[in-house]
């Protein structure tokens, strides 16, 4: 420890020990920092349950809620339409989406998350999409909660319209808009969710709803009607 500096003027043993000690400390600090950071939500770790605010949780919560309104509208058509074709489509949509909601809510329960978004801000998990207009939405009186969703007045109109061609057309228009509005969420989650089963479900929704979208456009054309603007 008290060895004198050598003749070439290099630092003494003490200084060398200090420098080495500092280097070791720095490495330990950096290692500790890395250790902390890899546990941050949104990191690539896939072993643990997805965190609040993650794509997986956000998608399951917001898509469940989006689906529930689709089910609601489909059930109205299933109850009231006089057209077999429309009733069949309504049954298909309602039963498929209800089953998908059950899956998503089951996962949310496993992850100890709310089964629906109670923050009042929707789709904030899509914020790094870089696509303007797909960002978070906040409830506002008379505005849809999420893209494609019907407002209360539209639901009331659907519920109270007399059965017939106009009812079928209005249902198809609302449901077409609903499907199209939900697809960016499914698209985003199909590539960015951390859990493979969430990506699979989102991808499946995207594809099956795309074909239903085409079908509804055909049904509207067949009835001499156009999609909602």
């Amino acid at each position, binding site marked *: 420890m008290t060895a004198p500096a050598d003749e070439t003027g290099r630092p003494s043993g003490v200084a060398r020990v200090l420098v080495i000690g500092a280097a070791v400390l720095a490495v330990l600090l*950096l290692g500790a920092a890395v250790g902390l950071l890899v546990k941050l939500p949104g990191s690539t770790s896939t072993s643990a349950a997805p965190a609040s605010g993650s794509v997986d949780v956000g998608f399951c919560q917001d898509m469940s809620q989006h689906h529930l309104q689709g089910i609601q509208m489909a059930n109205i058509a299933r109850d009231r339409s006089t057209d077999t074709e429309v009733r069949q489509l309504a049954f298909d949509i309602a039963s498929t989406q209800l089953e998908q909601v059950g899956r998503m809510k089951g996962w949310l329960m496993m992850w100890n998350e709310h089964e*629906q978004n109670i923050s009042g801000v929707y789709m904030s998990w899509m914020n790094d999409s870089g696509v303007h207009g797909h960002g978070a939405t906040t409830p506002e009186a008379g505005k849809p909660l999420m893209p494609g969703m019907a407002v209360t007045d539209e639901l009331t109109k659907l519920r109270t319209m007399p059965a017939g061609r106009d009812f079928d057309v209005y249902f198809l228009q609302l449901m077409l808009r609903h499907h199209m509005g939900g697809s960016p969420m499914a698209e985003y989650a199909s590539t960015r969710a951390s859990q493979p089963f969430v990506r699979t479900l989102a991808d499946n929704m995207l594809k099956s709803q795309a074909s239903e979208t085409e079908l509804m456009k055909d049904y509207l054309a067949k009835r001499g009607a156009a999609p909602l603007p």
Partner: protein
Amino acid sequence: MTSGKKTKATRNSVAAARSSVVASKPKPWGTIIAVIAVLGLAGGVFGYAYSQIHANNVKEAALAKWKPSDTNKDPSTQLAGIVTKEYKGSRHVEATQRVAYDQTPAFGGPHDAQWADCTGVVYDKAVRTENMVHGLEHGAVWIAYNPDQVKDDALAKLKVKVEGIPYMMLSPFPGLDKPISLQSWGHQLKVEKADDERIDQFVSSLLRNPNTYPEVGASCENTAFLSNPAPFVAEKPGADAVPMDGGKDDSQTEGQQGQQPNMSTPPASGSASTPPSS
């Protein structure tokens, strides 16, 4: 650290000066600065990571406080002013019957077989309690307000919390003893103002909390009811009202009609001038 280094360095340089004729060696400032810089950088990175984690943990903890989980099954018990009661589900009464509820507004007990639609519905007129209670059984939160005390901005604030939000319903409740009363199955909280933070905490704790409502997975849709909601009955239930432990147990036969109901005096529907009493 620096002072110790300095004295040793001084001693060393003195020794070096003694052992040679060369002028005294300068202190290794470059090394000192480099060591401090590296330590500072490492400390900074660690500090940043730690503060990020800490902020995140604080945020998570604040959210988790009102989020039902395996370890926090009913967060609402931490709410100041919460009233809780145990009620048995699935006991039904007929559309013509009244229930002698033990609370006002009621938040559990026998109820009508038709649940009030709770798909984010804002009821403009007061609704029959026997139907609202069935909505609670399906996991909904019912916000009741005194129409004489809650109007305009305050009412608009409540509507935004309900309209279109699944498993939420809002309705006026004539004669309510506080401006706002929140109900979930077995839970009630009365507050004075629409911006009371406990409203959102109540909703966060209890909306479709699988630990606190009897029929997990039940639907809130009931378009027949929504098209023609049963009106609120202001009169106090009579002696023929179904007691809190009464009602037909439909837990095994829901959806099937059993024996004829007791067709006693139908409730007078009409003026909401008389406040209900508990």
